[in-house]
């Protein structure tokens, strides 16, 4: 670094004539007077805040419709869970990409990965993205890495920044442990640091929002994990009107405090919603039937939670939280990208109950039945949780996982044999290591909404009304309607969507009580992603309460390849689609481009509270770990599933019997 010796030349000291006259006396005064006395300190308000940089103004209600506006709504795909270098952990993972980089990536441009290679989406740009950095110590690690910053002198920072994956792991553990023990130096929590980072998040969102083409949403992650049990939420704001600083888990780990704070924001015109994720890593805590203080959930809690959490992120790279095989033993497809460890550590989960969404929906029905309130009436989205600032990077054949240099190579994520070996003979992976954990991660998920146009207002409104669906990565489109008086030929009419909206409710909605002798009909419609596989079956997952007991059942309702649906077991025969594991090629003439049917629930009982959601399954295809192996010329890791069944989940429709 060059040494700069700056000397004022032009600066002139002007001496007053009177001072010259009384020079001697002044010297005497100067020698005795306290210099502080010369200027009495008067504290006044901070300098008037300058107007923030021009940001995308909310369009007034009467604004002209954007191109592509569709009263029957378009499907838009996005990612509402994205970390950049402003997150403490991403920075430790050597990620240096910014919120602007994240938006560039989502628009289809290439950005750099921490490991040194370039990354880019292959499936085309996304429609909407929220950058959601951890609010705790937001931006602080970046400042700590600046040798000129006082943060860099703190003992905890020493050895925190290393490109070596083992040292990264140690550093990550060190900082997370300090967070959990409340021992992070207070300098890290300087509001000025967080303020700068939060400003950066907002400015990047404002710069990249392009109504009609690409929507950005301002957001952040509330990172609560009491005893390591994951209670993380992403907070997503409706407009650029956001609080001065996020409400963080350092202020309170109790999500109820977050929701109360959000209520307070709402009262001041700041509208936001929170989306819990990785309930699979909560060890039963996320969807328990008690409050934070251990007392049973009451109506006030249920209202507070539902007001602020209309959605759950049910699938992401750290596993899928729809259901666990032990909770849904009769669901042959329940064992999908299951992660059975804590978040950010190799500790194993001991309690699956309370950690999965399907069971939470059932518990919600039970509470509704017994107590008259339901805290768990959630719609579904998926998202990536990328820490590489790479929204939507959940493509099996183009997967680089999510924690920078920690899992940036196939060897580090356990998909190829270590040390350049050509086989898996004699390779043992300790289940309590990072590699074992990264192996269990999946290339999943995306958030999808049905909205009139691609704008903040329209997309946020869709999130609020739960007209959303989740996918494990492919951009499948799912429609789901329920009603009592659809035209009989609904599924075959060209105006199917018009009729369905006119005569029914869609995903996220409530079906009114049935009149005598009527059973609801369900329009189930899945359409493939042209860049992904063909569809093998569409299913309806039903949960209901019968004699005080919550039950569930999975119905296949539409089969591919004109295969006959077995209406006793409600299962489609297998279409026999296979994958060639030596090339990952799939069979061309198996599966359908779309599955569409009008289905009537044969087990419908008008007195049973129920929910219904759709699951659409693709033919099997190579898992990311198999693609890694194929590129490496080695066999797939025998401990891992070589193929997966990509899928989409609609938000539920609820049925409430007459009181």
């Amino acid at each position, binding site marked *: 670094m060059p*040494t700069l*010796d700056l000397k004022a030349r*032009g600066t002139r000291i002007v001496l007053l004539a009177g001072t010259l006259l009384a020079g001697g006396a002044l010297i005497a005064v100067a020698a005795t007077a306290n210099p502080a006395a010369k200027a009495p300190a008067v504290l006044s308000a901070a300098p008037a805040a300058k107007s923030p940089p021009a940001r995308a103004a909310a369009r007034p209600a009467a604004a002209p419709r954007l191109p592509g506006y569709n009263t*029957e709504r378009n499907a838009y795909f996005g990612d509402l869970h994205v970390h950049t270098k402003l997150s403490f952990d991403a920075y430790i993972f050597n990620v240096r990409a910014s919120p602007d980089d994240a938006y560039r990536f989502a628009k289809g441009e290439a950005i750099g990965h921490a490991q040194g290679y370039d990354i880019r989406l292959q499936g085309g740009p996304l429609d909407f993205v929220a950058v959601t950095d951890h609010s705790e110590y937001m931006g602080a690690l970046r400042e700590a890495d600046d040798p000129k910053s006082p943060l860099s002198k703190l003992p905890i920072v020493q050895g925190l920044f290393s490109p070596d994956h083992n040292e990264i792991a140690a550093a990550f553990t060190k900082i997370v442990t300090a967070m959990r023990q409340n021992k992070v130096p207070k300098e890290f929590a300087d509001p000025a640091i967080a303020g700068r980072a939060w400003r950066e998040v907002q400015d990047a969102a404002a710069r990249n929002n392009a109504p009609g083409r690409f929507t950005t949403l301002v957001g952040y992650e509330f990172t609560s994990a009491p005893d390591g049990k994951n209670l993380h939420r992403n907070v997503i704001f409706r407009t650029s009107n956001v609080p*001065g600083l996020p409400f963080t888990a350092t202020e309170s780990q109790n999500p109820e405090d977050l929701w109360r704070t959000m209520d307070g924001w709402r009262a001041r015109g700041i509208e936001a919603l929170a989306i819990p994720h990785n309930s699979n890593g909560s060890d039963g805590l996320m969807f328990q039937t008690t409050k934070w203080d251990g007392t049973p959930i009451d109506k006030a809690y249920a209202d507070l939670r539902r007001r602020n959490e209309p959605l759950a992120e049910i699938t992401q790279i750290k596993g899928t939280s729809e259901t666990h095989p032990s909770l849904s033993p009769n669901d042959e497809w329940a064992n999908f990208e299951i992660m059975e460890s804590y978040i950010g550590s190799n500790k194993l989960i001991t309690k699956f109950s309370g950690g999965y969404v399907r069971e939470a929906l059932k518990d919600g029905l039970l509470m509704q039945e017994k107590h008259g309130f339901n805290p768990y009436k959630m719609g579904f989205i998926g998202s990536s949780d990328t820490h590489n600032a790479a929204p939507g990077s959940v493509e099996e054949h183009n997967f680089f996982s999510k924690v920078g240099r920690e899992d940036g190579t196939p060897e580090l994520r356990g998909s190829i044999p270590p040390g350049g070996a050509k086989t898996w003979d004699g390779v043992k992976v300790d289940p309590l290591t990072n590699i074992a954990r990264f192996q269990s991660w999946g290339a999943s998920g995306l958030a999808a909404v049905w909205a009139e146009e691609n704008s903040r207002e329209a997309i946020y409104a869709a999130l609020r009304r739960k007209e959303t669906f989740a996918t494990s990565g492919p951009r499948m489109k799912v429609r789901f309607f329920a009603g009592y008086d659809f035209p009989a030929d609904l599924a075959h009419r*060209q105006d199917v969507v018009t009729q369905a909206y006119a005569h029914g409710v869609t995903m996220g909605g409530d079906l009114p009580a049935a009149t005598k002798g009527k059973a609801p009909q369900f329009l189930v419609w899945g359409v493939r992603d042209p860049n992904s596989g063909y569809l093998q079956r569409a299913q309806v997952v039903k949960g209901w309460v019968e004699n005080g007991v919550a039950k569930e059942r999975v119905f296949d309702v539409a089969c591919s390849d004109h295969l006959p649906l077995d209406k006793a077991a409600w299962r489609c025969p297998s279409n026999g689609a296979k994958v060639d594991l030596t090339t990952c090629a799939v069979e061309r003439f198996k599966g359908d481009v779309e599955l569409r049917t009008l289905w009537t629930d044969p087990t419908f009982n008008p007195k049973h509270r129920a929910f219904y959601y759709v699951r659409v399954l693709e033919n099997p295809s190579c898992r990311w770990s198999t693609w890694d192996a194929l590129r490496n010329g080695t066999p797939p890791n025998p401990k891992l599933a070589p193929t997966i069944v990509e899928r989409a989940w609609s938000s539920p429709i609820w049925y409430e019997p007459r009181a």
Partner: protein
Amino acid sequence: MNPGPEAAGAAPRKGARGLVGRILREPLVHFLAIGAVIFVSAVVLKQVQRPVVRIDAAELDQLGAYWEQQMQRPPTKDELRGIISERIDEEILAQEARRQGLDKDDIIVRRRLAQKMAFASEDTAPISEPDDSALKALFDRTAAVYETPERMALHQVYFSDTRGEAAARKSAAAALTRLRAGGMDAGGDPFVMPLTYGDVTLTDLGRDYGEAYAAAAASAPAGAWIGPVRSAYGWHLMRVDGRIAAVRPAFAAVRSQVREAWFADARQKANAGLMARLRKRYRVEIAAGGGGAAPEPNAD
């Protein structure tokens, strides 16, 4: 008559008067006296004027507001007293630190001052209202920014691959013949995307159906059925009912946006100019090893 004593008596009087007068006329005495007065005043002033730490009403409001923002409720009396006390201590420590020169050679203080200076000086230069010719010139240079892309209204009939790809194509071809002969019943399938678009861009069609479909839509003659066109979902017939070419808006319609862009541009130039002018007022010396001449100021 003894003039001696008179003279002698008068002389000292006259002499004393002369001495006092001389002393009183002596500039050094004036100097010392003025100095003494100033000295005494200063001592007195110093007693009267201990350094003051004053928390005014605006600051009080702000302290309360900060607290409330964090806690989501107003502070209690005790809490407010605590906040104020902390603020006073902070101010006193800061003043003492300045007195002891602790702010010198401190990189954080320096950086913060630089930030404040930049903050205070940026965007302050008065920028006079541009005339229409300046705005028009900027608009002509950047008109693409204000364009609405080409949009079209189209109808499509969809034949799903669920019929089987060959069967879908055959049905589509047969339907095309019927439609061209004036028939109304095309016999297509429902589709998850719109069968009628009132206002869609080629970009969106390319994204949703693939490039072949977008290319067909781009070149389709208005009002005539064409196809079958292949997509990832099956076969399509389409009729473009109308096009709205990319519209370059009239200058008048976007004048206010152009004006904002002009101001943003002018502000950026003014800020860059400010730094350049400041640079001129300083001589920069860089120790050997700094790579020679001073680098140019950063524009942003």
